[in-house]
């Protein structure tokens, strides 16, 4: 009969209308500033630089190889290589970024910098409340603003960070073994030369 569907539909909307006052599970709205949902583990917003230890200046994993700068599709990364070298976590002397800027007003959150980084130095952040009154200066993040500790990384991406930590630990073991072997060879050579 004509109009049957309309009546059915109106019954349905009436059910929604009154139901939303009685059952809380109908209302899926999260009233954002007061209520929040924890970000998903795989969420990604803008990149940040990981550092080990307590001090970001000495602990940055970045060695200023500039691969990310070259790969970045919108060219939002700017890196200035240092003149001198500093020992990294494995004890090897490495360059470090004297300047590392990311313009997050240009960044498109593609994660390519993270994919290409051989040093696990750049990762994606989940922080999204970044609005500001200064759209030029305040959106250009420098080394200090970008640096975040490995503990923070473990906290926001636990699974991913565990994998990264395991990989770095394995590398360290390998590097230590190599150092040991070379040291032994060296002592042996010295001993041999002495004999």
């Amino acid at each position, binding site marked *: *009969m*004509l*109009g049957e569907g*309309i009546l059915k*539909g*109106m019954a*349905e*909307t*009436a059910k*929604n*209308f009154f*139901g*939303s*006052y009685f059952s809380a599970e*109908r*209302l*899926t*709205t999260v*009233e954002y500033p007061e209520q929040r949902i924890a970000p998903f583990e795989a969420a990604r917003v803008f990149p940040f630089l990981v550092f080990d230890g307590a001090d970001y200046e000495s602990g940055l994993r970045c060695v200023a190889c500039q691969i990310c700068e070259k790969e970045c599709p919108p060219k939002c990364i700017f890196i200035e290589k240092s003149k001198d070298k500093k020992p990294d976590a494995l004890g090897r002397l490495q360059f470090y970024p004297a300047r590392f800027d990311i313009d997050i007003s240009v960044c498109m959150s593609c994660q390519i910098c993270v994919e290409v980084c051989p040093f696990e130095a750049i990762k994606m952040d989940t922080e999204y409340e970044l609005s500001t009154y200064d759209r030029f200066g305040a959106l250009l993040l420098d080394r200090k603003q970008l640096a975040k500790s490995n503990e923070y990384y473990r906290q926001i991406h636990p699974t991913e960070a565990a994998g990264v930590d395991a990989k770095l630990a394995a590398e360290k073991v390998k590097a230590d073994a190599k150092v040991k072997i070379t040291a032994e060879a060296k002592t042996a050579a010295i001993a041999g030369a002495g004999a």
Partner: protein
Amino acid sequence: MSQSPFFVNLDQIFVLLRHWLVSFLPAAWQPAAGVLLSVATIVCLFPALFALTTVFERKGLARIQNRLGPNRVGPFGFFQPIADGIKSLTKEDIVPLSADAAVHFLAPVLLVVTVFMGFAVLPMGRNMVLVDMDAGLLFYFAMGTSSELAVFMAGWSSRNKYSLLGAMRAVAQMISYEVPLLLSSVVVVMITGSLSLTKIVEAQNHYTWCLPHWYIFTPWGFAGFLMYAIATTAETNRSPFDLPEGESELVAGYHTEYSGFKFALFFLGEYVAMFSISGLGTTLFLGGWSAPFSFLTWVPSWIWFFSKLMLSIFVFIWMRGTLPRLRQDQLMNFAWKFVLPMCLLNLLVTGLWRFMGDGWLRWVVCSAILLLAYAGLGLGEMRRQRLGKRSYRYAE
């Protein structure tokens, strides 16, 4: 039934208030001042009601969709219209360079003026009518029809394809539904024998036992009311007949090129038109300001009028929350193949009702004719078309 003077006074409070205020003026000024006072009341009251309705509509629609709705400005979001009003007043008023500036300016003004003119003849309570015109219904429809002109002026003067398309849709729709609107109201005139809206209300203000003689409680009145409701929904461009401003295809239809307060005026005009046409529907079919039961006649008449009006508005909102927008061809089919034949048949049925005299026979005959026609037209003209699987010639 004798009533206590308190309730009689409460019923007439606005009339008495006006008399009291006007009595301070010299006798020569009194008629004009009285009219001005009433006009000012109407012009203030309905925008206030409009502000309230926008909040209720947004909250109601939200609840229908299991959302919360506006709840930020003031307690439960009830100061939202104030924020909206300030916003629309501070916005830049943009007139397109190639627009016809004069017509572009006049369109919203004309809309609001004609819409408010309709209230002149609506009886909003006992003795509460601005102009008790003998041909009130005719005047009302004359004013109501002029709003189409405003819509077309807006669309035409904007020089914008979306505006023009919206205006053309609006005119096609409003003219198509103007016919059923008038025909569905004519039945009331046939029975009452008068175009005066006060007389129409008085004719319905009788009771058998405790039930009122509203026209909706007769077969022809019920059918007429349904047709009237459909036609008014289309006339006021409300969903599901909101094609003239269908935002998914026409940006905003005829008011695409309006911003700031002119847009607010269109918005106001649309809602006030909804109030006014609901008020007329109330007057014609729902007994105007008369009480729904004889033992409730002590409640002031204006309370009944406005409760019925707000109830109609609620149904409008409910429909909007339920139905998707029609397609243009569905809209036209519905008007010309279903609503119009039903209205014409209803004229015949009303004639039968009028001349069959009292008794149960006319109830049976009139109801049977209308029900059969409804079922027949619904099955015949409005059946779902089975078009088969859609085939694409090029996009395979």
